[in-house]
């Protein structure tokens, strides 16, 4: 039972009430053009390149046994990259980073409890993404663990996986979790959606989702 995590952000203010820690999971069934966390679209680990930090030293190319990097100017042949981490280790300037690491709910727990003191004023933990309910069972387990420590929870979900979430959250171990939807209701209507998200959004049970929220 694992959750692929892109990042954990501490002291977030805009992912639910109060002061929170937000876990951004990787993987989303939607591919919305307006996605503000595109590194969370794919569920798999990815090599990120921070152009502004690259010194052009070529060390990544020197160490890469797969020939994925070329220098001057730096470029990555993504068909060759293997996420072995050699280039990341060699890049002391911090220009390369592997985004995405699997955590069990148990491994995430102590990381999220570090800031428990900040949650006392009405904050808590948000699991966002990506689509956290792709991993509904693991997220429900994580929520159960966190609730055991009195942490208030918000899954920031697209709604795409609402029905699966219903099974986990309403009938499962985290049934009393607070569940909010991260919807753009103006977008979720008619043909516009088909255009905006390449047609893969099937919001079949929006009504059911509202029921879950309440």
């Amino acid at each position, binding site marked *: 039972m694992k959750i692929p995590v892109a990042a954990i952000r501490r*002291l977030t*203010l805009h992912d639910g009430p109060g002061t929170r820690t937000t876990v951004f999971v990787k993987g989303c069934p939607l591919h919305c053009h307006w996605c503000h966390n595109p590194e969370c679209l794919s569920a798999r680990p990815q090599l990120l390149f921070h152009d502004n930090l690259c010194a052009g030293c070529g*060390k990544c190319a020197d160490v890469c046994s797969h020939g994925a990097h070329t220098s001057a100017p730096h470029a990555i042949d993504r068909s060759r990259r293997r996420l072995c981490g050699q280039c990341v280790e060699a890049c002391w300037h*911090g220009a390369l980073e592997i985004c995405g690491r699997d955590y069990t709910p148990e491994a995430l727990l102590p990381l999220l409890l570090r800031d428990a003191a*900040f949650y006392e004023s009405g904050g808590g933990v948000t699991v966002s993404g990506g689509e956290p309910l792709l991993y509904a069972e693991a997220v429900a387990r994580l929520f159960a663990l966190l609730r055991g420590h009195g942490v208030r929870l918000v899954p920031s979900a697209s709604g795409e996986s609402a029905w699966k979430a219903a099974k986990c959250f309403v009938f499962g171990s985290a049934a009393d979790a607070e569940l909010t939807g991260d919807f753009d209701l103006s977008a979720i209507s008619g043909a516009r959606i088909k255009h905006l998200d390449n047609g893969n959004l099937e919001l079949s049970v929006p009504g059911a989702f509202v029921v879950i929220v309440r």
Partner: protein
Amino acid sequence: MMNVERMSATFDEARFSDGLPQAEVNATIRRVYENGEHDVAPFAVTRARMLACALENVRLAVGRNDTFASVVERHYLDSRYGVGEIARIQGERAETVARRDFPEGFARTNSAWAEGRFFTQADLSHTSPDWDRILSLGIPGLLAEAEARHAANPTPFTESVIIACHAFHDFALRFASVCDREGRHDLATELSALAARPPETLHEALQLAILYWHVQETEGEWVRSFGIFDRQYLPFLERDLAAGRLTEESAEELLVAFFAFFHAESKGRDAGAPFCFGGYLPGEPLRDGCNRLTRLAWRAFRTLGTPSPKFSIRVNPDTPREILRFAAECIQEGKNAMVFANEPLVRKAMLRRGKAPADLANFIPIGCYEPAIMGKELSCTMQCVFNLSKPVEDLFADGAAAPATWEEAEERYFAALERDLREALAIARRWERAWNDINPSPMLSATMAECMERGLDVSQFGTKYATSGVVCAGLATAVDSLLAIRTMVFDRGMLSFDDFRAVLLADWEGREDLRQFALRRPPKWGCGDETADALARRICDLAADLIEKAQSAKPGGFQMGLWSIDWCIGIGSKMKATPDGRHAGTPVSKNSGANFGADAEGPAGVVESLSRLDHARFPDGAVLDVMLPPRTIAGEEGAEFLVNFVRTLFARGGQFVHFNSLSAGKLREAQRDPTKYRNLQVRLCGWNVRFVDLDRAHQDWIIREAEGSGA
């Protein structure tokens, strides 16, 4: 801003109608001093005569629209900038006494400071008078007490206090006559009354505070606190409200005018006039003292929006949330001349140092964020400034053998730290003993009950408590540097110790790759990293042990502070490159926070690291600077976040915290076009300044901080 402009005009356009020109005042003071040198009278008496001379001759002015009699041509005597005669004499005497009594220690403190290791001094200014006594006894009460003591047991001390109190009394009357001459009979009547009795109204109490402030600062000790304002001035306000002399609105206006004086007088160029608010009232059970005056004063603060005065608030679990919320909203507006104090923690630190529970209700932050007991403590909070990161540099000194293991490097660091600290404290002790020869302070002493009971000047440690602060700077630079050595030399074998020495000597020239590694990879202080935090704890514990156990000339001994103010720039300017990736000559870490850009986990990580230190071991204060991008603290959520942050930091054991919310882009614009940003203020250290008044080095430093926050 109306009041500031009006007050500024009061100073800028003052028509002085009384007193002597600058050169003559200075020459007269010098004559009094030199005559005193040939006199049989002890120096305390001469000092009191110098004060009297200054107050008799300095030029005074009052304007037609002034709310208070407040304009003293003070810069002629100004001890703050070292241009006045009293300041010059202080400096001369300090050097003379040091060369006479401890020439080697004096030479050593100079050479140690030249290399950014430490400095020690006779800290003459970091203490607070007893405002309760000033307000309750008034000028005649202070004078009467001195005369009674003198009659019972005449000593040079009692004589000096009588001279000082007479000078204070005559100063009030002289100001009254100036007011009369200028047609301000209302102020003249009030000043005459203040010479004859304690204040009765809020206006009188505030006028007395201004007068006293002038007198003590002229004597040569900065007034480092105006006491617990809301508690001390509330009875005056309530009397005025009950008698119909004031309404809440007119009281707020009065406060605006009063606070505006401090900004107008300094033009925002000094360290700010400190006012304390809230906190527990005396007695049991503990009750928080925030009241209607707290609210009025904070509203006045917000209306003014100037760098001075600066406010502090003693925060405890009973502090009304709306007061914290109001403070947070001021910060959102860029009016951030304030610091939050964790009152329960400070009380714990003070109890640990043997202070009586009954005295804790009078805890105030001195100057910036150094806790002391108002009216009962001589707290020289900057007796010594010590650089925790210098012993790292010593590991790489010429001729020093390379350590064979990390453990050896670590132990050598701790041995050097201990050696330097012991040396600094030994010299600091000599300075403690020297104060009485340099700067007896009869006016300040007159306000202190125990000084009067014991017949001892503050400089003879007549107060109930007497302590010396040892400011420990550069914690993050020390921790990050040591762990860079460990990671790069011993754990990963990236280069030999001797090669590292060469790299640092060359200031990383040609090895930017290594510098980037040092900046990013080794464990860092301020990220909640257990290895770094454990090392920081060990450094702090050792320093606190040595400081607490060191022999001091004062009964309260030395006490550790974990802060740097802007000494981190001066210290850094004297240091070579350090293994944490820092370039030679650049600032070391500031206060108790992380290095620039090293707080990868943001403020939460810094709080986590700080929670692993025992802040009760820093009775000389410890402060966290939090720099947040304006967008983070915007709106309702932002204000709530600030309040929650303060509450959480304190719940986790932090001691003081203050905030900046600045955009690097805006600061750069202000550098380019200062006229457009005249009122942009920044929290520099424990005080605020207008950004455009800073020199380029300080401006760049602030910009770097703002950038580091992602602003």
